[in-house]
């Protein structure tokens, strides 16, 4: 029973961070801030869900292959997602997408103008 409580708390933590990321994606003021909020889903949300599901698969289902597959899915999402995030952010900046409000400091735009 204590194990079920631990599993539910871990998945609940993942759900809370996923909710935070979703709210950020809907409400943040500009494109780059929305990307920052979506990183929340890709890291803590996935880690919480994967840890909970891993404990469930090992101790309640007793299935080793499911546990290893869950660990591999979490590792894949966590190691590969920054590449896509980086590509989409760089592409958006090069395509001329800027926030409505001027940014506090913009080193990349200044260096691009000097080239």
């Amino acid at each position, binding site marked *: 029973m204590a194990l079920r409580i631990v599993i539910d708390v871990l998945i609940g933590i993942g759900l809370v961070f996923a909710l935070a990321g979703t709210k950020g994606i809907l409400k943040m003021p500009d494109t780059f801030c929305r990307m920052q909020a979506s*990183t929340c889903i890709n*890291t*803590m949300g996935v880690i919480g869900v994967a840890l909970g599901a891993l404990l469930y698969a090992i101790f309640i289902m007793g299935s080793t292959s499911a546990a290893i597959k869950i660990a591999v899915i979490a590792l894949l999402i966590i190691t590969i997602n920054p590449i896509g995030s980086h590509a989409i952010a760089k592409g958006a900046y090069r395509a001329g997408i800027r926030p409505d409000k001027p940014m506090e400091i913009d080193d*990349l735009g200044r260096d691009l103008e000097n080239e």
Partner: protein
Amino acid sequence: MQKTRFPAVLSTFVLCFAFWVLLTWSFEIQELAAGAVVSLAAALFASRFFIQEKAFRLVHPRRFFSLLVYVFVFLGELLKANLDVARRCFGGCKDVNPGIVKVPVDLPDGYAEAMLANSITLTPGTITLDIAEEDGKDYYYIHWIDVAETDRVKAGEIIKGRMEKWIGRIWK
């Protein structure tokens, strides 16, 4: 175009075969033989794109121990940054002050720089946009959700934290 070398083929083969066993999860001799043939073909064709330098670099006690310590250092940073961004999201999304800062980086080779850039991107609140070289030093352009410091070196200390030191130990 790089030539195909034996250590690169061997390490790509081990990775592909591990993935095959993982997906099928049956240990009959026929399935394992089919997996070995497919993995060998994939390794022969793809290893020169996949591994450019020394293939078994991480099989070394000091580097492997540094990698294990780095995972925990990184998880700590991740948890802190996640709590910060989640607080901003639940607090109405008005508490942001975005900007792009240019941060110097001092690491031995390209793999280490790519690893640090991916770690920074994975931390909520910072995204690496580009890497540029100026006067023999490398710089990251980092989009930061809350610019607390506009000076380059101090901003770099805040963003990179302890991650740069441990990545330098892994790839030394």
